[in-house]
């Protein structure tokens, strides 16, 4: 379980997060949504410890992350996997080397054991036969899959995804969403996804948190989204007249 407690963050006097508190439970896909500039990415970076909050605490189970020394923080980080917006694959390494990187760095397994793990991770994300390719030789969707394979290589307890669908066509985006959700359920991970993709919200949102101007203004499941009377949320999710009509029709039909 990950818990954010009253998180504030400011840059040069400009407050980006204004006291955000929320809880993320294991075995669920937790979505953080909001408009551009709402503070989603900053919040995610604080959650994973890449950025320190101006005030507030992040709890990993019963551990206050920012009170840890470097060695202790490193131990927590070994339990964290992350899929970055641009995949963040190392260009000079082949696909298999990218996935094996955390294993090479932090385990004492033999090369055969590590390769076996790489094979199983790549197989899990549906990338058999791409081992020897470089990131520049594969598509954006495949890069995301490699990113997921690398994120799960160390069998993490927590999985973070920053805009996993950005730059992907709707069909590929859906496949990536399903993959993340399946992996979350299979390994009972605490998954936190930062997105503004409405398909993701309606498909995989077990727990959705809506950030608006640095504040948490709504939290619920994908089923609650349709029926919520929160105007800010409705203005964001059903931004176009077409979607508003669709929502009205759906509500009429119950």
């Amino acid at each position, binding site marked *: 379980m990950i818990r954010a407690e009253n998180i504030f963050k400011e840059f040069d006097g400009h407050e980006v997060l204004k006291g955000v508190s929320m809880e993320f439970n294991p075995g669920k896909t937790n979505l953080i949504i909001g408009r551009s500039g709402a503070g989603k990415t900053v919040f995610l970076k604080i959650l*994973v*410890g*890449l950025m320190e909050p101006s005030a507030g605490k992040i709890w990993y189970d019963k551990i206050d992350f920012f009170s840890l020394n470097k060695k202790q*923080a*490193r*131990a927590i*980080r*070994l339990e*964290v996997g*992350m899929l*970055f*917006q*641009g995949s*963040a694959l*190392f260009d000079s390494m082949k696909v298999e080397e990218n996935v094996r*990187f*955390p294993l*090479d*760095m*932090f385990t004492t397994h033999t090369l055969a054991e590590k390769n076996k793990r790489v094979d199983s991770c790549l197989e899990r994300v549906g990338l058999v036969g791409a081992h020897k390719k470089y990131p520049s030789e594969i598509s954006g969707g495949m890069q995301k899959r490699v990113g997921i394979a690398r994120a799960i290589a*160390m069998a993490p307890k927590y999985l973070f995804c920053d805009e996993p669908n950005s730059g992907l066509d709707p069909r590929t985006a859906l496949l990536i969403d399903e993959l993340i959700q399946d992996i979350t359920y299979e390994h009972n991970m605490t998954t936190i996804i930062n997105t503004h993709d409405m398909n993701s919200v309606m498909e995989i949102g077990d727990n959705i948190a809506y950030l608006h101007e640095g504040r948490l203004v709504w939290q619920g499941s994908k089923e609650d989204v349709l029926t919520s009377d929160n105007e800010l949320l409705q203005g964001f999710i059903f931004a176009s007249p077409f979607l508003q009509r669709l929502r009205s029709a759906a509500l009429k039909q119950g």
Partner: protein
Amino acid sequence: MIFNLLYHIGRYIMLLKQTFSRPENLSMYWKETMRQMEDIGIGSLIIVVLISVFMGAVAAVQFSYQLDGTLVPRWYIGYIVRDLAIIESAPTITCLVLAGKVGSNMAAELGTMRQKEHIDAMDLMGVNTAAYLILPKIIAAVFMIPLLVTLSGYVAIGGGFLATVPTGTLSADEYERGLRAFFLPHNVTMMYVKAVVFAFILTTVPCFQGYYVKGGNIELGKASTNAVVYSNIMILLADYLLAVLLTG
């Protein structure tokens, strides 16, 4: 201005402290160091040979012109070219050029890694990114650059030979006599001390510039330029200080 300077010096020292810490996995660091050695050493061979041959040739031609009509024996040209190469041109000019080639490359590489979130990805895994990305570069440079400087010294002397002997300015025997005259082993020590110090500067300053890049391509370009400019200034400053210390 002074506060800003102190801030950056402090940050540079903090980065070095972070860089010189215990590696998580020696074999990964070894692999990266070998890759850097190849990049810095083999990758810079051609440019080092080219600049060195011309440095030696120009020095020989210039001194031949200077000594023309004086009572100084012509074989002094060999002696001057040799000491100029060992004391100054091989370590300093070579490292200034390498700061442009290797330094800007390092700043751009780390800056791009920062922008493409590669450094964040490694940080998140628990990798000490300063150590993993910078330490192998420093070790590789500190080993390879003295070798390149040694090569540069020999090639510069060869360049001096090519510019004077085939053109009839002086005979091969005269040139060789100059090369053998007044040799001080201390000068070679000085060359290696300079090479190691400059190698450290031309890796750490660009790495510092690249590691902390913020923003987009314009900032990356600026970091790359600053890497070269600041490395060159630091190398020349260190050159002066070493000259004072080692010849005093």
